[in-house]
């Protein structure tokens, strides 16, 4: 247990640096180096070059910048506004009005962006001014956008799933497909909740009538995105393209859409590229730092000890899931979302096989926990994204997300009880 104590110490340093406000990737990397030095002194550092090259020279990771660029192009050229405008009319008859638009808009944008933050920022930026203007329930408005944004990492393409796939050598295409039904189900559950709230009146409208002509006109704002999503998902599902190829094709398609339908100027294009570099730089550095951490764990040999210890506990499936539930619920409140995946997966992944857990299913469950973490105080990033756009109280955003938390826990329970919800679609792939 001496090694495990060292691991706990280094994890404690990580949490302390993170809480103190150090940049997340450095907060992972610095304790990793300290842990390495604790194991074998300077000699332990000699493997860093090889580990660096071996981990980052990865074709799987190439999908990340392309999906991020696609979302940035759509955002900068004002197409997220167009999606929202079209959807506002398409779903206007549903009880909940623009709140339903928030959820469907987030789901739609999620299907082209891969990121919760991009989804919450894009749809939130367009939606919140209109919601405030029309006196919608403030808490529910903010909560629906923060929670709707989390769909960005469950519905494919999902950057969180690409990262999980790169750490576990699991098929990213299958992971993407595994997220479709749970993501669709979660969208419907969010919409059902808003519809029920609307029945009680208050500042949540029951829906409004839209003429058939206006409804058809609004479809023209939505159809191009549906085609883009269909092209990306269809090509991956049919086995015609890898996720990276689908991302490249999607980027080109999005670029054409932005030129024809949006307001894509040279300045917007440059801004989109600059933002893509910054977002990817942050993500890739977090992934790299976690690989060094995983290397340190490997050098110490503590990973095998932890696996043996966990297996030796002889937990039942239910007990194992309950432990995961507690672990990730607590971590979600303390650790940044992608950091949560990269820190825990190298330790837990070897245990999955011993408990007969499907790694694709586990990937979906893990992403659900990350989603919860993104709307859990005190560090849930979506809360801050919405608060910064809204300029309201953080407490109101937090309170608004609580019902959505409960809905997500219900979906977690359903996924545990019925794993086929996640595993059926990947099993049908070519």
């Amino acid at each position, binding site marked *: 247990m001496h090694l495990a104590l060292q691991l706990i110490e280094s994890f404690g340093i990580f949490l302390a640096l993170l809480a103190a406000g*150090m*940049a*997340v990737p450095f907060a992972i990397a*610095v304790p990793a180096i300290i842990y390495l030095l604790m194991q074998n002194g300077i000699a332990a550092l000699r493997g860093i070059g090889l580990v660096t090259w071996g981990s980052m020279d990865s074709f799987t990771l190439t999908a990340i910048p392309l999906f991020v660029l696609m979302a940035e192009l759509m955002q900068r050229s004002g197409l997220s506004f167009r999606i929202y405008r079209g959807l506002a009319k398409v779903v206007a008859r549903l009880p909940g009005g623009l709140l339903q638009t928030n959820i469907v808009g987030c789901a739609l944008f999620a299907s082209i962006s891969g990121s919760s933050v991009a989804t919450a920022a894009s749809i939130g930026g367009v939606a919140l001014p209109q919601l405030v203007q029309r006196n919608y329930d403030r808490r529910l408005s903010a909560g629906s956008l923060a929670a709707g944004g989390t769909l960005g990492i469950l519905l494919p393409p999902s950057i969180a799933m690409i990262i999980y796939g790169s750490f576990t050598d699991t098929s990213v295409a299958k992971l993407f497909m595994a997220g479709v039904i749970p993501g669709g189900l979660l969208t419907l559950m969010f919409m059902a909740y808003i519809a029920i709230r609307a029945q009680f009146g208050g500042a949540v409208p029951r829906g409004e009538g839209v003429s058939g002509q206006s409804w058809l006109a609004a479809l023209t704002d939505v159809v191009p995105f549906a085609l883009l999503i269909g092209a990306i998902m269809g090509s991956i599902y049919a086995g015609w393209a890898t996720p990276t190829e689908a991302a490249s094709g999607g980027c080109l398609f999005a670029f054409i859409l932005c030129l024809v339908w949006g307001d894509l100027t040279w300045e917007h294009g440059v801004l989109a590229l600059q933002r893509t570099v910054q977002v990817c730089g942050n993500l890739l550095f977090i992934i790299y730092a976690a690989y060094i951490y995983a290397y340190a764990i490997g050098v110490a040999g503590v990973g095998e000890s932890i696996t043996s210890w966990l297996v030796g506990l002889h937990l039942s499936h239910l007990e194992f899931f309950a432990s995961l539930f507690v672990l990730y619920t607590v971590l979600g409140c303390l650790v*940044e979302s992608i950091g949560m995946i990269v820190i825990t997966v190298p330790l837990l992944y070897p245990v999955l096989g011993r408990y007969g857990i499907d790694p694709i299913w586990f990937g979906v469950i893990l992403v659900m926990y990350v989603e919860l973490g993104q709307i859990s105080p005190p560090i849930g990033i979506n809360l*801050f994204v919405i608060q910064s756009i809204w300029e309201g109280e953080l407490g109101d955003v937090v309170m608004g997300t609580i019902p959505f938390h409960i809905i997500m826990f219900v979906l977690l329970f359903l996924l545990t009880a019925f794993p086929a919800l996640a595993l059926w679609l990947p099993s049908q792939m070519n």
Partner: protein
Amino acid sequence: MGNDPEALEDRFHPAPTWLEKSCMAVCAISIIAMGLIVISEIVTRNLFGFSFEVSEELGGYIIVGISFLSLPVCQVYRSYHHVQFVQARLSPRMQALSHILFDVLSLLFCLILLWQLTRYAMSSYQSGDQAPTPLGTPLWIPATTMPLGVLAASVSLLRSLIGNCRRFRANRA
């Protein structure tokens, strides 16, 4: 949580120089190049029935390059995520002090990385390692982007450290 700590006063934070701007431009061009390479692979494979078999190899090199050359960009443009709930409760002087500590730790990490990655690139050059692919790329070429990026990040971190020391002194008065 956020990536632009409002608590920090901008006049002390280093402005982007040619170093960060060049790294940003190289990364941006690399992303476009990666997209074009992959698209050309799709086109040749599906329309002409052959493959250059280079997209996976070049894509991997480009990801390595972006990962490290974006480090100075993220440092100066404040793109890294920070948890702010403790920072928000500190006085400006303590904030500056904590950022000096973070910069020192980060710089030490970068210097260790620079040492090890330079060793790796040099050993790759000396041993004449080549990729076992049709391109047969000498691996020291893409591997060199790793120490170059970390070197640039160290310079940016040093500038950030100097800025935070000035901030600390300014808040002492």
